[in-house]
């Protein structure tokens, strides 16, 4: 693969960090402003996709190997469902976060929302990156000049 322009690479490197930071912000600030696990997951994935587009699939897969991504895909769902199952073990309904702190329900709600949003974030990041890897792993039919 042809190397991209130097400036592009430098800008990308600095941008990727910022985007990841922003993703975490969206992830954990979803309680107060628009955003949440899904949006954060997408943004996080965009960081890796950007890195991949500029530096190539091989490079990004050295940072984030495909098998890790595939585990993440599954992990998020399990974190989410696991939160609910934990509630069940505490003797409450599935996903009844209040059960974490039975004497002060809304505290439990806070932690519950945090866990499940994390679950969503992990899966969405995983899936978006995995889909990108899957598409990028195919040989393109159109060359750069065909567009």
């Amino acid at each position: 693969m042809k190397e991209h322009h130097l400036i592009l690479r430098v800008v990308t490197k600095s941008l990727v960090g910022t985007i990841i930071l922003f993703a975490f912000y969206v992830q954990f600030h979803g309680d107060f402003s628009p955003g949440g696990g899904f949006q954060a997951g997408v943004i996080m994935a965009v960081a890796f996709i950007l890195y991949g587009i500029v530096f190539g699939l091989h490079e990004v897969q050295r940072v984030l190997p495909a098998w890790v991504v595939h585990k993440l895909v599954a992990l998020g769902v399990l974190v989410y469902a696991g939160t609910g199952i934990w509630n069940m073990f505490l003797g409450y309904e599935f996903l009844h976060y209040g059960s974490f702190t039975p004497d002060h329900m809304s505290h439990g709600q806070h932690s519950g929302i945090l866990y499940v949003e994390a679950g969503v974030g992990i899966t969405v990041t995983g899936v978006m990156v995995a889909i990108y890897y899957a598409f990028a792993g195919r040989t393109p039919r159109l060359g750069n000049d065909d567009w």
Partner: protein
Amino acid sequence: MTETIVNFILFSMLVITAFAIVRQDRLFTVVMLASVFSLLTAMLFIALDAVDVAFTEAAVGAGISTVLMLGTIALTARGAKPASRPNTLPLLVVLVTGAGLVYGTLDMPNFGDPEAPSNVHLSPHYLTNSIEEIDVPNVVTSILASYRGFDTLGETAVVFAAGIGVLMILSGLRHRRRKDEEEEEDA
């Protein structure tokens, strides 16, 4: 009044974009127009107080799905053949469906009506009780993650399904100790 004007302008642009997509045969243009459509939609959502949705639509419609579509075009073809079939049947189907929808709107409450059934039944509960019950400022998050948390689990499962679906169709699952083992399997 300004709201109405903004809405109207957004609408006109949306309709123009949609019609342009109908007529366009260059897939690249189609995808780009779709991306524009999504951005306009996101703006409309903001105008309709749905900031979370707008954020998501922008990220998904203008971001991810555009990237994926471009990727697909790169892997397949860049032009679409102009339609060769007669389009009377599609037109008929669409007109009938549209007529059904319009028929349905005739008994709908006015747009923005605070007394509409949807705005007086469940919504007040969420807007008043969630402060005490969940204590999260963003009511959308409260509903999304707690009141209707199971829907969101389902949503995550849908994403998961799509993820493993794409893997299954395009690449297959990767393992940590790959290479030797997988080549063995394929053989």
